Structure formats: C-alpha cells, structure tokens
C-alpha cells in the first residue's frame, strides 16, 4: 500500500533542486524518517539539507561510522524496515565496511550513502578519496557510484527496492560532491522491478506436493528454521505447519524468536552451542525440513556426516543456497510465507509423540548436566546463564535481546526466552564484536515501545564503547548489561580446550566501566554477588531511562554443549 506521502511525491510535477536536496526527497519518498551517520567534507551538502529538513528526517550522530551501520542494522532487524547509514568519503566510507559485511551475511536490508570527491578528481588520489565501490563490492548486494545529479532519483529507488526485496541485503550508493551540488529537475518514481533481477522465485507446485508427501509419510520428521521465516513474515504459517504436522522444530541463531520459546514443539537451537537434542537427532530424523536457513558450518558441523540418513527438504528464497552445502532431495524455492502457505493444506493432521519424546529425553540429559548448573548454579561465582534467567523473569520475556559476540552471545541465545518475533538481534554470520551496543540503539529507535536489552562481553563492549555518547546525547533508554569476566571468554574457552590452556592475549585488564557510564550520565551499577543480582536486574528493568549494569561473572566458565569445529553434530559434547 502506498502512503499518501508517497503518492504525493510521485504525482508532484518536477521541481528544480540540488542533488543533495534530491537525496532528502528520495529518502522521504521511501518512507525513511530516521538515519544514522557521521558528517565530513564530501557529504556536507547532504548534511546541509538534513539541517533544513529536520522536520522530516531525524539524523542520529553516532560516534564512529561503524556504529552507524550497526545501529541501522538493529533498526532494520527489529522493525523490518530498511536501515539507512550515511558517511563521508575515504575513512568515513571504509569504516562502513564491517557493518556492510555483517548485513550482507545476515541478509539485513540497509542502504548506505557515502560522499565522494568531485567527479573530475576521481582517480587522482584526492584528499579523502577511496575506491569505496571497489572495496564494498564483495560485501554489498548492489552498489553504485552517482556522478551526475540526474541519476539520483532512479538510483535511490533501485537501491531501496534491491535492499528490501527477495533475500534482503545492504546496498551502497557513492555520490560525488558535484552531483550533490548540481541542480536538476527532480521527480520520483518508486522502482517496481529490475529486468536482470528476480527477487522471489515463483513457487513450484510440484515441489511443494513432493515436500508434503515426504512430510506426511515421515515417521521422524524435524524442522530447522532460520531467519528466512522472520524476513518472510512467515511466523504464523510456520507455526501452523508445525502444529498441523506435529513436527518438532528447532532454530538457528538467526531464526530465534520467530516461534515462541514456550511452544510445545519448539525443541531449541541447533549448531555449535545449540541444544543437545536437536543436534544429535538431526542425525536420526528421517525427513529434515529446512526453512529459510542456509546450512552454515556452525549449524552443520562436518558436512560428511550431516543428516546423511534423512531426506532433506529445503524451503529457500535464494536459488544459490540450494545444494550449496547440503545436497537436498526436494528444493522449494520462493518466499517462505507463500510456500509454507501452499504447503499447509497438503499436510495431514499428525502427531509424532514418541519421536518428540526423544527430544524431551535428550533435553533432560542436557538439563541435568549443563542447564541446571548454568541457570541455578551452586558454585560461588555468578554465571552468565543465571543472569539471563533473571532477565527472563524481570522482563516477562517481552524484551528485544541484542547480543554481541562470544560466550555471552551463546548464553543469551540459549537461555533468553521469547514471546514475539524479531526479538533476538545478534551478529550471527559475521560474528562482529562491537555489534551490540550500536545495534541496541538502533533497535530501540525502531521499537520505542519495547524493552531493549543489550547483552555484551567486556571485550566487545570496548570495541564500540564510544556509542554511549549517542545514548547520552539522545537519551536512548536502552538497558546495557556487560557480563564481565575480564577475559575474551570464547577465545579463552577454545584455548582451554584446544590449545592446552595457553591463554594468549585473552586476559583483559578492564577499566571501571561504571565510572565510564557515569561519565556519560548513564545510571549504572555493578554487581558481583548472587544476593544482589535479582534486585539489580529488577531495578534496571524498572528504569525508564538508559541504564548500565555490569555483572562480574566467573572468569573461567565455558559454554556447553559444544560441537568441536569440524566434528559431527552427533559428537556434541556436554562437558
């Protein structure tokens, strides 16, 4: 549905504007009202127009361009809209690269706008000139350099269309300074298609019928869903399929929260630190139904021993993912909402109680050996697991959880409980430390009515700690929990298990984080004792302001279960 604003923009007769002003009109026409960025020489004309159009567009000044990309990602992931980040040429542009790579591998819709030196200086090694098109090519879904102002409307329309259609991804538009200054007759038309690009393959009824037949005849079927369910808005369809066919369903990190944690057939997480049951039973199921996931190596472990006994069905929007890692028996191409919707009436009402019981039995084993000690520990030091459990209780499982990368991320994904979709925001594919703090800012701005809690390690926190400045300046009421073990915990765990405890450069001498937060006037607290934890978390959740909580956790704690790198999913270790 087009909004009135869009219609007006479309039907408005042409007006003479500068390229910089045209960019504002393009963003507004695409429904953008918020963007993140950092000014500099080559993008100043656009910032000047942002200043004049503050009534239409809010610009959030991050403290580093990388922060702008992660904030845009957090915003996009929580809202389902396109995140927008802006930077100047040269170092401003290169600082976007990590966020672009992260958005590319995690299929996040994002448009990045960079300034560029004026056209006649291109290739002259001018001040702050860098070949950002060349640099960003491998980490963007599409990129384009505008050197003429008249290209602006069509390129912006195409950029937003490409970023959000099909399998979403990041797009970068580089705009030379002359194209920002030059005037031209502006008119805007939304992009409806690109002839060389088929965003969503049309579903093939034959393959859906074949999939239904396999599922109907299966004795031990299992679903593994990924982020494709969330990106495709197919949560209800997936739930209906699970319920009707009675299939136990597990999720990848990127798919978490699409189905509530409490759903009786939700059997947990697959992958390296996933749950014991779904990992082991992947190699015992007879039909494996993959939905909107890409068989990442962290999910599959060794491919040579992955689900070899099973018929594999793959529901997927991106044809390049079919047979990329796992050879499938039935590929169902298309948008997951549409394909699952077509599948549903073909499924028999079914139950697989004894098979489902296998998952429950495995869960009990995992509970007794791992989970119990994580969330109800008897040892002295605080565990990350119990912090998550207390957050579940205090937040009513309604919060958006934004995690960074490392042990705390695995604990968050394992123990945070969710009632609604788009609630688990993390850097899944790229594993970008420093993601969480800026992503939480973006997530909060994309869902002001929701509680947003960032869970960060002491290492990752210091990679983008400067973004506390954004929280301070704009009074963004995010809750920040740093699980501090004074180590790069995940690397330390690997050193303990695989490098004979040689802790090379994983010990961190940390500053007083509470004082740093206080420097930004953020209410803050540090706890290190079990008896203080519950009240501290309660106080944090009750606050309607930004809040920083440091929890000093046990230093040498490990995340289990674990599938060692290159091992089979059947070889998942419980200790």
């Amino acid at each position, binding site marked *: 549905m087009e909004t009135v604003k869009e219609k007006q923009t479309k039907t408005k007769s042409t007006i003479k504007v500068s390229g910089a002003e045209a960019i504002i009109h393009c963003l507004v026409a695409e429904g953008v009202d918020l963007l993140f960025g950092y000014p500099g020489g080559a993008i100043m004309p656009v910032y000047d127009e942002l200043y004049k159009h503050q009534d239409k567009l809010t610009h959030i000044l991050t403290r580093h361009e990388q922060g702008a990309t992660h904030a845009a990602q957090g915003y996009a992931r929580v809202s389902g809209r396109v995140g927008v980040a802006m930077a100047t040429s040269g170092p401003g542009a290169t600082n976007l690269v990590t966020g672009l790579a992260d958005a590319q591998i995690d299929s996040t819709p994002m448009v990045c706008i960079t300034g560029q030196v004026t056209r006649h200086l291109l290739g002259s090694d001018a001040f702050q000139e860098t070949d950002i*098109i*060349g640099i960003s*090519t*491998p980490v963007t*879904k*599409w*990129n*384009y*350099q505008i050197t003429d102002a008249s290209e602006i409307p069509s390129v912006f329309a195409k950029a937003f269309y*490409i970023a959000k259609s099909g399998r979403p991804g990041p797009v970068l538009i580089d705009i030379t300074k002359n194209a920002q200054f030059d005037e031209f007759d502006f008119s805007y038309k939304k992009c*409806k*298609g*690109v*002839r*060389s*690009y088929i965003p969503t393959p049309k579903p093939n009824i034959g393959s859906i019928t074949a999939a239904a037949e396999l599922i109907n005849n299966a004795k031990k079927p299992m679903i593994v869903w990924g982020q494709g369910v969330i990106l495709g808005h197919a949560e209800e369809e997936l739930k209906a399929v699970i319920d009707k066919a009675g299939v136990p369903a597990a999720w990848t990190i990127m798919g978490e929260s699409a189905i509530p944690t409490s759903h009786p057939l939700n059997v947990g997480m697959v992958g390296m630190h996933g749950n014991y049951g779904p990992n082991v039973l992947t190699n015992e199921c007879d039909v494996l139904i993959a939905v909107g996931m890409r068989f990442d190596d962290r999910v599959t472990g060794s491919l040579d021993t992955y689900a070899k006994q099973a018929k594999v069905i793959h529901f997927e929007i*991106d*044809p*390049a*993912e*079919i*047979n*990329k890692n796992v050879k499938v028996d039935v590929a169902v191409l298309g948008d997951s909402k549409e394909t699952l919707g077509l599948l549903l009436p073909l499924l028999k009402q079914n139950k697989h109680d004894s098979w489902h019981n296998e998952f429950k039995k495995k869960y009990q084993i995992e509970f007794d050996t791992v989970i119990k000690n994580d969330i109800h520990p008897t040892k002295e030091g605080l565990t990350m697991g119990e912090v998550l459990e207390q957050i579940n209780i205090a937040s009513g499982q309604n919060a958006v959880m934004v995690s960074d990368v490392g042990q705390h991320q695995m604990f968050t994904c394992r123990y945070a409980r969710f009632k609604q979709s788009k609630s688990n925001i993390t850097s899944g594919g790229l594993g970008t430390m420093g993601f969480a703090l800026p992503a939480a800012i973006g997530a909060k701005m994309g869902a002001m009515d929701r509680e947003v809690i960032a869970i960060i390690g002491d290492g990752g926190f210091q990679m983008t700690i400067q973004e506390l400045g954004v929280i301070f300046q704009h009074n963004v009421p995010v809750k920040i929990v740093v699980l501090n073990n004074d180590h790069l915990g995940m690397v330390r765990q690997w050193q303990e298990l695989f490098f004979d405890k040689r802790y090379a450069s994983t010990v961190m001498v940390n500053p007083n984080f509470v004082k740093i937060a206080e420097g930004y006037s953020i209410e803050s607290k540090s706890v290190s004792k079990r008896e203080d934890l519950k009240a501290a978390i309660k106080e944090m959740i009750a606050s309607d302001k930004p809040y920083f909580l440091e929890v000093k956790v046990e230093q040498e704690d490990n995340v289990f279960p674990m599938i060692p790198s290159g091992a089979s999913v059947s070889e998942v270790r419980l200790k």
Partner: protein
Amino acid sequence: MEKQWFTISVYSENNVGLLNRISGIFLKRHINIESLNVSKSEIDDVSKFTIVVYTTEKWVHNIVGQMEKQIEVIKAFYHIDEETIYQESALFKINSALLFDERQIQNIIKESNSQIVTVSRDFFVLAKSGRREEINEMHDLLKPFGIMQFVRSGRISVSKDVMKISEMLNEFQPN
C-alpha cells in the same frame, strides 16, 4: 569430484563495476580464471562474459549460482567442452626477413591455416584462430625462428543447446 574444464557464459547488463563483481566470485573461492572474454551478445544492450575455469562441477555450480545472484546478471550457464563450439585467436609478430629467408615459415603459414594480417619492412603479423592445442602447436613451430610478440585471446564459445535469454527478457514486466 574430478576437476575438468568448464566454459561459463554470463549474460548481463553492460555496467561499470560488474566485471569486478564477477571476478570477485572467483577470488573469494581462490579459483583461478583461465581465460576471460567480454563482448556484446546476440541481444541488443546485453553483454556476454565467456569465462573458462578448471574446477569441479560442484564449484562451477556454486559459482554460477553466485553469478546469477548479482543484480545485473541476467542469466549464467556452464558447459563442458563437448557441449560447446569454441575457439581462441592468436597474433604472432615476426621479423619480415624470416619470410624470405626461411622456407619453413611459409609452410607453417600454409599448413596452420593462418592468415597474414599485415606485412611491413620490419615485421609481419600472423593471425590464427582455433583450439588451444592448434595455437600452441603453431607457437612451438615458430618459436625456434624467433617470435617478436605473441598474444592469445580468451576463449569464445557458443553452446550447442539453446540459451533462452530473449524469452526471459521479454517476460520481464515491471509490475
């Protein structure tokens, strides 16, 4: 899986930067491009990349999938040698004196089915089109006499079966 020669044909828009995207797909997978040719195709405003690689079918399948994912790529195909008609072109620049002094040179020209493109006082240029082995053979024969310059093009090829590009483009309806 066994490695073999594949010819990849990529139909695309003619845009700045696309070559970078295409070559990046090989770079990311540490696969060497054996030869590359870019030209116009049988369709107006559509370019055609012809790329030769020596790899496994699993990889070439993966590569072609990644190529088709690129926004400006219309369609990509891969074929083994038996499924295509292909050849390469080469130019040899040779000292003109040899044309008169060495009888053998004239025989090579005749037997190799090559053409003399130009003759000047100092040098003459031979053009030869054909399979890689034929060009190599000619090169080996001429080498003892001295080759002033040599260059060989990338492979160009047409497939025996139909590549349905025009139909695809005609079907496109911006809705």
